[in-house]
């Protein structure tokens, strides 16, 4: 009898192993990066957003850190490391955060002292080949000019996130200006939806201000959730959102020739 019982228990476990697991409840979310800022429709193209489980209350510690964070703007970072005004102007001209942002032309090399030095180093190092010296110019720039701002932002993001581990992150594209989160595992526990928080964590610079969103959204499994970012107007708070708008510290970069 004991033998048969044992066999039945073993067979049950064996069969359980083959049973399909309960179907996962997956959701998706679209964050639209078209935002009206100071009366003007802006596109938050190519900006990263993070998805965190729980609403604003659950992520309160993170929101408080975001509110208290010291932010260094792009211009202040580069002037802080003594980049030339021409270098900062070159970045500003393409709304760039690093020299990887766009191609460095011969005219740029002639105008920007850092580029000139790097180009000349490249000529020496790469067998006097002007093409390689130009195309590989960033390999001869000082590292803090190349990736210093990115590394600083990355470490700031890590510091701000702390123990709040995002489920996913996604960037807005430059055409539809949407960040898409898919295959979001939902634990709705009998409810139709689950609450999540979406934040850009790192403030985005527009004009003389920086903008940071932490907004909560309900995501269900039946259809994609859609979030449209907003900026408070007339001091009216945005529903389900903490929008942190700060004046950027002005760091003099000199006047840029826009021709």
């Amino acid at each position, binding site marked *: 009898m004991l033998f048969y019982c044992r066999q039945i228990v073993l067979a049950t476990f064996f069969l359980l192993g083959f049973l399909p697991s309960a179907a996962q409840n997956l959701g998706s979310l679209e964050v639209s990066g078209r935002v009206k800022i100071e009366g003007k429709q802006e596109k938050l193209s190519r900006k990263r957003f993070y998805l965190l489980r729980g609403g604003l209350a659950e992520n309160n510690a993170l929101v408080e850190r975001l509110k208290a964070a010291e932010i260094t703007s792009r211009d202040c970072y580069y002037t802080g490391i003594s980049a030339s005004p021409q270098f900062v102007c070159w970045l500003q001209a393409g709304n760039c955060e690093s020299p990887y942002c766009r191609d460095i032309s011969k005219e740029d090399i002639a105008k920007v002292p850092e580029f000139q030095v790097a180009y000349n180093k490249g000529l020496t190092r790469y067998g006097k080949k002007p093409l390689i010296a130009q195309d590989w110019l960033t390999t001869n720039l000082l590292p803090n000019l190349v990736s210093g701002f990115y590394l600083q932002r990355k470490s700031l993001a890590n510091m701000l996130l702390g123990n709040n581990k995002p489920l996913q992150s996604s960037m807005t*594209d430059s055409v539809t200006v*949407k960040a898409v989160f898919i295959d979001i595992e939902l634990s709705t526990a009998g409810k139709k939806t689950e609450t999540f928080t979406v934040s850009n964590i790192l403030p985005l610079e527009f004009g003389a201000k920086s903008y940071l969103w932490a907004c909560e959204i309900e995501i269900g499994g039946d259809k994609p959730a859609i979030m449209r970012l907003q900026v408070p107007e007339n001091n009216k708070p945005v529903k389900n959102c903490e929008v942190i708008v700060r004046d950027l510290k002005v760091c003099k970069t000199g006047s840029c020739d826009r021709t």
Partner: protein
Amino acid sequence: MIGRKIHIRLLLVGAVAALFAASFLTESNAQKRRDDFLHATPQHKKINCNSCHKIPTGNWVAARGYPDVADYPGHSSCISCHRAEFFSGNRPAICAGCHTNPGPRGAARFRFPVATKSQDFETKFPHNVHQDLIASNPRRGRVAVAHFVNASYADGVSRTDFASGDTISPMRRQVYSADDPKVEFNNCSICHQTPDVIPKFATRALPSMQPLTSAAANTVTPVAGFFKNSPNSHASCFSCHFQNAKPLSTDCAGCHSPAAPYKESSTVQRYSLKFNHLDKDHVNKDCTTCHVRITQNADIKFMKDADVPILTCSTSSCHGSDITGEIAKRNASIAEKQAAFQCVFCHTPEIGRFPIPPSHR
């Protein structure tokens, strides 16, 4: 007498044939030796990569056109451990690891790296970091994103023929013409471009599923514009990482990690062999409009199968109704116990005859 002559002739023919065959045998042994080198032996694993591989190698100008590891390590890298093998007979087997004609006078070497050899390393590539650092700003105005001409690097054509006075580099085929404002997005085209020739392609296998019916005739033939290529050399990496930006060109382990030997397939496998990247309504979209997972991918080897989820098409105003319509037709055909409708709007019949996967519901 005549019979004897025939015998001699036959013997001579046989001898020549044997010599001819032996020449192949030697080649085959050489090839075996060449392909047998393993980075993963316990002894080799103890050695730092750049104690053998020099960067750049002396032949970089002719071999690549840009500073690269373009040749085998020198004798000095091997001889301290393999001295005895170097002095073993007239045609030491170890020479066949690199040289086409093994022996003291055989200087010519196989093309480096050996194309037939299995890969010992896999490559790590974090798309997310590159998206953040390189692609965080949209291109503006008429200036298109620069991209490499990979084929020119791969075929070893020297770039010395480019006149230094020119303003547009062939290495970075920038498009400045207002009449031809080709828009390329987010620097993806630094590494991924439309190939000049159609690559080998195949339908992706669905091993865990059974087709509902036999495939109907396929009416679409992919062309080169359907595909994008990927880097197959250091060219696109070294333009930023040669020095200063980590991982550096001297830090092989920064990008390459040891793997069980494998042969890389050059066949592009797709679930949808009908998608044309160059279609007028696709070419104006940002890559990440559809490749939505790529901006968070920290390592290429963890990329999901279909890196373009159907959601990007099925929820769009362009194809939403087409896809919904096809799914409805499939369901109707099954409900009416007819031959299953084949979903051919996106798929070739080879895929379109399979059951609708959960991702499409």
